[in-house]
């Protein structure tokens, strides 16, 4: 076929009508650039989520009763007792590296005239080892003797130290809080910092984070609604989680699926799924603009065929066959559309890069998406160019020549 000649011809036609060609491409440019931008932003967000989860340990897991199965709220017997935790640890010595009842408390505090609110999480002795993104700036993390003795100690975040004590090193200071209705004076034993994360801005919280030995937060016999675990990270988290809840349900004399688990990994999968669905949905909407762009191309190609009726007649008089004319116009609309696709891709990548740089996130661009975008726009061009091209190809030579 005369593919090369037709490509040159199409480029000449596009060049000789620059403004019109550009306006025709605009629909495709807008469509493709939004698809590319949205999918890149989605992919970049996924990458960030992955890093985020990795930073606080992919082997983090919680076990708790399945709320849907507890008829009238959590009953006393549903709670996880210290004995249950010991039993779990004994049953899976290799796989459970850390197991502590999941307890927390919120309390207002006042240091001098500065007020603040603490959100305290009860932790065990080795917590600092597992929570990978936590770094101690001053003092130490909650240790074995704090936990064993249920000592009134607290590790606060840097922001709290700065705001309440006007200094970073607040070790040795005292913070008064109310825990389970009881006033307690906690001694600051450490100041920590976690690198700022995507979630900070998502879950903007007014309160300071802090860690305390879990025994000072528990009530009664030490039962809690959930248990926090760190597991053997070399194993498949979902498989481990299933084993744990099966065992826990059995020793608690419950239905096999009464307890459920939520792992960092499964959370990440869920978030990624949501992000994926979201960018797919927005991408689909953006794809509609591609169709609109295609209609624009069809419209202009119809005009172009009419304008060039005489040229078509001349070509036919010189021996062009129906297929030659068809290809000429088809290739022209494909090239217009593909050029639009290339411009749109560049623009989309730029938009994604600018957007991501505001969010301080590295851009992730899937080369597959680019190939797909340019290919798809060429197909759009072909599809919408087919009707005008057929119209041109079917022209009767003598009638086309007579066309004024």
């Amino acid at each position, binding site marked *: 076929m005369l593919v090369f000649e037709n490509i040159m011809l199409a480029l000449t036609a596009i060049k000789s009508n620059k403004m019109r060609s550009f306006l025709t491409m605009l629909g495709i440019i807008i469509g493709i650039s939004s698809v590319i931008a949205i999918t890149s932003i989605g992919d970049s967000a996924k990458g960030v989520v992955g890093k985020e989860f990795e930073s606080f340990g992919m082997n983090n897991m919680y076990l708790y009763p399945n709320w849907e199965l507890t008829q009238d709220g959590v009953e006393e017997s549903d709670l996880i007792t210290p004995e249950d935790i010991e039993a779990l640890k004994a049953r899976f010595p290799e796989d459970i590296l850390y197991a502590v009842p999941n307890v927390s408390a919120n309390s207002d505090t006042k240091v001098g005239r500065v007020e603040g609110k603490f959100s305290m999480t009860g932790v065990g002795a080795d917590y600092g080892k597992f929570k990978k993104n936590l770094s101690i700036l001053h003092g130490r993390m909650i240790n074995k003797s704090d936990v064993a003795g249920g000592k009134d100690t607290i590790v606060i975040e840097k922001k709290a130290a700065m705001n309440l004590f006007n200094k970073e090193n607040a070790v040795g200071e005292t913070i008064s809080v109310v825990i389970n209705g009881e006033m307690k004076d906690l001694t600051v034993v450490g100041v920590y910092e976690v690198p700022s994360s995507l979630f900070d801005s998502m879950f903007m919280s007014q309160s300071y984070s802090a860690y305390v030995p879990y025994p000072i937060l528990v009530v009664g016999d030490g039962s809690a609604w959930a248990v926090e675990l760190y597991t053997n990270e070399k194993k498949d988290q979902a498989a481990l989680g299933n084993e744990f809840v099966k065992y826990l349900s059995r020793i608690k004399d419950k239905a096999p699926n009464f307890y459920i688990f939520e792992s960092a990994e499964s959370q990440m999968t869920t978030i990624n799924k949501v992000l994926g669905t979201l960018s797919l949905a927005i991408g689909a909407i953006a794809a509609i603009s591609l169709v609109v762009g295609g209609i624009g191309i069809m419209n202009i190609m119809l005009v172009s065929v009419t304008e060039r009726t005489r*040229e078509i*007649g001349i070509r036919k008089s*010189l021996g*062009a*066959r129906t297929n030659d004319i068809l290809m000429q116009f088809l290739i022209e609309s494909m090239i217009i559309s593909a050029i639009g696709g290339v411009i749109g891709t560049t623009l989309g990548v730029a938009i994604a890069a600018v957007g991501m740089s505001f969010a301080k996130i590295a851009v992730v661009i899937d080369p597959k998406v680019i190939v797909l975008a340019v290919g798809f726009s060429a197909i759009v061009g072909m599809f919408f160019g087919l009707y005008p091209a057929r119209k041109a190809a079917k022209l009767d*030579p*003598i009638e086309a020549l007579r066309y004024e």
Partner: protein
Amino acid sequence: MTHEIIKIEGMTKVYDTGEIQVAALNSIDLTIHKGEFISIMGASGSGKSTLMNILGCLDRPTSGHYYLEGVDVMEKSDNELSAVRNKKIGFVFQSFNLISRTSALKNVELPMIYGKIGAEERKERALELLKNVGLADRSHHMPNELSGGQKQRVAIARALANKPQIILADEPTGNLDSQSSVEIMEIFTQLNRKEGNTVIIVTHERDIAEFTDRIITFKDGNIIRDEYTREVGQC
């Protein structure tokens, strides 16, 4: 006896314009031999262009037969007709019909593109054809940068691109001054005398017709006269 390259029998062309039907050709019979140099004359509207378009396979008659080199053209498919237009017939129009914004060279290359001739050979031949019509230095000019006579010479070069035997020219000098007209007619004469092309020219100027060997006169879709102005010589 020379070879009958074109033979027409009982050819009628009726234009149906809705209210009225115009018989542009009225059961025409005509035989043209290979190597003839013919002019077709007649008043405006007498059917000359209609005949030329049918001879050039641009249009189909309403009824009758057209044998080109002994083969009935009516039987041919669209693609076969394209091939005939491409290879066997060179058509020259009154209005030149060059493709605008396309250089003289590219215009001349066109029939060779559709004839699937390689780029290099195509260009070489196009340059030679342009040289033959005296436009070697105008090959990169656009049609709107050429005079009428120059345009028509490009059109002739283009018609000759695939070395067709038959040259059909519908009032090729109709838009030209007398000086250019003579130049164009000299090219046609050369083609006929030197290359042996069968050349058929429509004109309504007597002195243009005088260049040719045979003058066919039309009136109201009929041939009213068919005369040889001089002995059909060599061949």
